[in-house]
């Protein structure tokens, strides 16, 4: 189509961009202001950028610790999720594996179930296992609850890879693991990246599971730590803004860098609730 943007359409797009950007810009620039400057000139650029807020949030606000914890939890969860889900998807989609389709449907069923609906029994189980107030509780929950969606996306992609390819590898002397690792997995990079990004966002941003399972300050995650700025600490907006900016930068960087995979994940996975 050779349509050109009509002036009205252009105005609408710019207006809505402002609706999106204004809150983000106010917070971003506010993070570099003193409380007094924010109060007097909330909507201007910072006159002389202050970096104290970041230091304050990192050290006084424990952000450094939260960062470390969110990183550890995301890293461990994602490593296991990717290992388990790629192996399963590979197995599910290879011919001759009759159970494959049944197992696939069993996993995909999990996409519908929200983890909130099972919080009571899961919590009791974690308590019995002695895992409450450890990082393991949330890591295990993340692995279990993202498995259905991950396998759904990966299986869709693995199916497009001709099985003659890995069968040939097996005939050539590879064992199953080698065929999977050396031949199939490298071809599936786009799907693996999609699963990685979407799960990273889910886990990095999750508030609900840490709220349920994590009590000690030294294992709190970013979302949980940030939530303390609500209410009681709200008097100091610039420090809160600095914390918000730091917590959001990693996901924004990932999003800007890998946008294509993100969008294809949304459209492929719009089945995810």
């Amino acid at each position, binding site marked *: 189509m050779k349509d050109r943007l009509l002036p009205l359409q252009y105005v*609408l*797009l710019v207006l*809505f961009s402002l609706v999106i950007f204004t809150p983000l810009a106010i917070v971003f620039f506010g993070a570099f202001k003193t409380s007094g400057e924010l109060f007097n000139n909330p909507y201007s650029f910072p006159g002389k950028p202050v970096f104290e807020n970041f230091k304050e949030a990192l050290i006084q606000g424990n952000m450094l610790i939260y960062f470390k914890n969110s990183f550890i939890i995301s890293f461990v969860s994602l490593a296991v999720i990717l290992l388990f889900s790629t192996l399963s998807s590979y197995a599910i989609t290879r011919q001759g594996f009759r159970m494959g389709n049944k197992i696939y449907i069993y996993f995909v069923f999990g*996409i519908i179930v929200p983890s909130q*609906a*099972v919080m009571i029994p899961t919590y009791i189980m974690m308590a019995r296992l002695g895992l409450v107030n450890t990082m393991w509780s949330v890591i295990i929950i993340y*692995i279990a609850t993202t498995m259905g969606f991950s396998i759904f996306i990966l299986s869709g992609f693995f199916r497009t890879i001709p099985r003659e390819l890995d069968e040939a590898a097996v005939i050539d002397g590879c064992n199953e693991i080698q065929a999977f690792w050396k031949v199939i997995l490298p071809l599936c990079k786009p799907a693996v990246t999609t699963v990685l990004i979407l799960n990273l966002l889910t886990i990095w*941003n999750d508030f609900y599971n840490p709220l349920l399972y994590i009590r000690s300050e030294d294992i709190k995650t970013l979302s949980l730590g940030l939530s303390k700025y609500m209410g009681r600490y709200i008097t100091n907006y610039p420090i809160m803004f600095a914390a918000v900016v730091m917590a959001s930068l990693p996901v924004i960087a990932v999003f800007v860098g890998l946008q294509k995979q993100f969008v294809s994940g949304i*459209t492929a996975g719009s089945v995810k609730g």
Partner: protein
Amino acid sequence: MSTHSLKKHAGRRKRNTILFMFTVPALLVYTIFFMLPILGDVYLSFFKWNGGKSAAMTFVGLDNFIRLFTDDKEFVSAMWHNLVYMITVIVIQLSLALLFALILSKKLRGSSFFKTVFLLPVVLSNVTLALVWSYMFDPLNGFVNSFLETIGLSFLTHNWLGDSSTALFSIAFINAWQYVGYSMVIFIAGLLTIPESLYEAAEIDGAGRWGKFKNVTIPLLMPAIMMNVVLSTTGSLKVFDLIYVITPPGGPVSSSTEVLGTLIYKTGFTYGEMGYAAAMSLILLLIIMVVGFMQIRVFRAQELD
């Protein structure tokens, strides 16, 4: 059977066994920590139990469910709040998303820039948005009120999040603001599947802009519309973080924003009524599953097209 094919047969069985072993770790963790708890909900919902290790579990049959629907104003009002929230989100989010999808589905200069901007909030966490918007809606220093004053609408200024009559709508607005880009991407994917020839045919039949929209775009976009409606519906049923952080339990307006998610949490972990909370979870699960299955049917239909 020749020895050759016997060997081949044995080889295939061995291969299938190895492949099955690949799925075992995922199956175990998924079953134990996600699927079995569903049965746990069913089991617990028949008991009165405060969750204590040594506390007695009393079998009460269907009492929990009867209490939910005959004697629990909180539960009914939580469901009502979910519904109001859902409608607000769907109206704001989907109408804006459709509008911008129609504009941006054409290959225009700069369209990818706008797509990126509109999608940006999707990656931010709910806690982040709660903090950002609590500042925006701050009755004294916030942008929203001072903006209204600047453009001469000062009579509209309001304590948006602190007043029980507007808190739920304000939070729904934040939710819609975040996901306009998400719905838009799904609409754009749907719009791109509509063949250009249909528009040309409609034009030959004398259809104008509106006619083409009503008779070609909307019917053919139905799967994407349904998908978005279902996603917003399940999303609204699941809402927890935004509500919990912006209007914390016990806060001044928390009763006006109580939804199923926060009510289950409160019933189980604050009041210590595990059986009763499990019964609530089951109702939530049931509603979401019904909507979810619709979603899968829509998805299947789209795949077949």
